[in-house]
């Protein structure tokens, strides 16, 4: 902190000296203002960090050509992004513009490190009504100005292998969870399993059980933001997930150790499983060698008689401006550019995600069957993760508990409702710290 103050003091005196030297030459100072370089931390959306760099660079060049503002992009892997943001928050030295996972929005909003988009700021970047309402809901706690805007929208869908379904004589994707389990049993053969899951991944686990618990009418936080982990609905939601391995036996127990975020998808692509619950993945599946004609996608079905027909969380990536940025007006220009219709079309087309602004859907690239499925999920069947400051802790604690319970189920011990309830109570107690 003190070092920063000294540095800024030195910087201020240098600027003062140079201004004095210039004798108030307005042209020079005007020129200096244009010579701004923004630092942008991009999340990894493409197939590799290099791929992201290649995809983003033409857009950044276009922005520089238009405004004269240079952008220095750094693609940060997901495993580091949150830690880097926390470190930047603690030190005050960070990027000007950054990508965040939209489920972190409320947690990061609470740190005060991100610039709030109040009505005036929102108007500067073209207004709030340009954005998809569902995605805009996942940008911060309700009742407070959002601290980010959506840039790439995503939702979970049920991917199924069309030719395996046809072979098993199933003509339609499952419309209820019971139908899904039944189809899964038919599709579990010595060659392949009904469903693959990324059971060792904390984030995949929490996203899945959150949706299942919403279907049951459950909730992990009450309206006042108090944790309510240990409820019968949440237990039922988690049990539905564990039962894939322990009762229905349509998921390979080995899936419990899948943790690097690609293994379940790779199993689906290579025909080791007939279904997988994943965020928009057609591009990755083709890259993994899957025949596009085999790829089918449908909303994840709810159990019959479900309380809510929920199929996904509101997933996606948000764009935020770091509050310590010394170039806020330019940073906002960049946010406006990144959420402008042409850029949205170009980037989301390449990444296989959905545009965050409604106008972009007029492009033919987003009028395919798969995109329409995802857009309808996002419009009608998606709920945001809890918008509470403890969201990250909640994801970690409950996601880890589910991971451990899956491991237990995989090694042959049945996890009872009683045991799930105890795990949830323990997770909630740890949140209190």
């Amino acid at each position, binding site marked *: 902190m003190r070092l920063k103050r000294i540095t800024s003091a030195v910087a201020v005196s240098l600027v003062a000296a140079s201004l004095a030297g210039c004798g108030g030459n307005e042209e020079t100072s005007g020129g200096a203002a244009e010579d701004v370089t923004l630092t942008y931390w991009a999340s990894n959306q493409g197939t590799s960090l290099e791929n992201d760099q290649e995809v983003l660079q033409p857009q950044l060049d276009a922005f520089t050509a238009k405004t004269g503002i240079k952008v220095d992009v750094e693609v940060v892997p997901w495993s580091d992004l949150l830690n880097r943001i926390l470190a930047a928050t603690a030190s005050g030295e960070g990027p000007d513009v950054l990508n965040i996972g939209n489920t972190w929005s409320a947690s990061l909003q609470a*740190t005060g490190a991100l610039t709030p988009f109040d009505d005036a700021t929102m108007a500067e970047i073209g207004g709030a009504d340009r954005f998809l309402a569902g995605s805009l809901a996942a940008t911060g706690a309700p009742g407070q100005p959002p601290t980010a805007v959506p840039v790439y929208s995503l939702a979970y869908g049920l991917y199924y292998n069309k030719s395996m379904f046809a072979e098993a004589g199933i003509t339609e994707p499952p419309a209820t969870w019971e139908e899904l389990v039944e189809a899964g049993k038919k599709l579990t053969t010595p060659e392949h399993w009904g469903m693959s899951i990324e059971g060792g991944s904390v984030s995949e686990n929490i996203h899945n059980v959150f949706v299942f618990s919403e279907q049951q009418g459950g909730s992990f936080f009450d309206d006042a933001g108090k944790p309510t982990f240990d409820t019968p609905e949440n237990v039922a939601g988690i049990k539905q997930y564990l039962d894939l391995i322990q009762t229905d036996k349509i998921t390979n127990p080995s899936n419990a150790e899948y943790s690097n975020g690609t293994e379940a998808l790779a199993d689906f692509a290579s025909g080791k499983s007939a279904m997988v619950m994943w965020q928009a993945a057609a591009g990755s599946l083709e890259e993994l060698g899957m025949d596009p004609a085999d790829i089918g996608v449908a909303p994840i079905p709810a159990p019959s008689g479900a309380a809510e027909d929920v199929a996904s969380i509101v997933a996606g990536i948000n764009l935020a401006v770091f509050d310590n940025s010394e170039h806020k007006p330019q940073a906002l220009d960049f946010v406006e550019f990144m959420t402008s219709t042409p850029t949205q079309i170009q980037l989301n087309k390449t990444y296989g995600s959905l545009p965050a602004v409604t106008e972009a859907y007029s492009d033919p690239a987003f009028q395919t069957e798969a995109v329409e499925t995802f857009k309808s999920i996002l419009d009608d069947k998606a709920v945001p993760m809890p918008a509470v400051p403890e969201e990250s802790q909640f994801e970690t604690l409950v996601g880890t508990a589910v991971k451990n319970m899956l491991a237990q189920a*995989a090694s042959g011990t049945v996890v009872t409702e009683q045991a799930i309830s105890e795990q949830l109570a323990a997770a909630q107690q740890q949140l209190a710290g």
Partner: protein
Amino acid sequence: MITVDPAPEAGTEARTGSTPVRAPRKRKRQWLPYLLLLPVVVAELLIHIIPMVIGVGMSFLELTQFYVRNWTAAPAAGVGNYRFVLQFDEASGKALLHSFWTTVQFTVIVLALSWALAMAAAIWTQHAFRGRGLVRTIFLVPYALPVFASVITWSFMLQRDNGMVNHVLVDQLHLTDERPFWLIGDNSFWALIVVEVWRLWPFAFLALTAGMSSIPAEQYEAAAIDGAGVLRSVRWVTLPNLRSVNQVLLLVLFLWTFNEFTVPYTFFGKSAPEQADLISMHIYQNSFVTWNFGTGSAMSVLLLLFLLAVTAVYLLLTRKKDVDA
């Protein structure tokens, strides 16, 4: 000058019997040692002492995500963080206690295995034979490999369906019908021990080999003349000569293993299975992953106190034996 500790000066005077008249000249010369010490004192302060003091300070703050941006605004928690982590009848305290015991068992087993392996290998390569250089080099390979690459390779080898270990155990040797899990469940503890021993023992081997090279050959000859076999000469010649090496080696191995973070983090990712939840991973989970730096610091301070206590007791005990011998 004034802050200089008078004790060594008094000692010097007593030994040399110098008169008070000569004292000023001696004092002038005493600048140099302190000047030479200065860099290390500054470095020690910057690298160890100040971060440690900050860490202790943090443990008394309610340092959650609301305050990471401005630590000075974080409200004082008093001993609240300590009370929270030490409430052993609640889930958080139980988890910490469980993690602590897991780490104690892990450390004891890793230490015993690494030391025994290293000792055996060092004795084997103590006397020259054809190919000794090659054998020693092979033994040191795990220590020379980058941690990340080697531990990731281990995790691939230990996968349930496609891993090499299960391929050999189940498909080729037919030892079990059911494919065991190694990365999750009860076996994960033992899998982690194997990887840690594999990483650690070459260092012990290196230290013991160096120690053994300074044992005079005459002692072994004398033992042989007295009719001692291999076991007896190890017991009565090698081990006593390695006393001081072993004293330091075991302490260092203990501290490294107890604090081990890189290996489990690479092996399991962000969250380790309950059965292999080592204390440093547990603390990481409770501060970085859940954004609660106050409780994380409190746990770290408790860990520091524990390690300090163990080290002090260990050094006291082993020094006493030195005097007895």
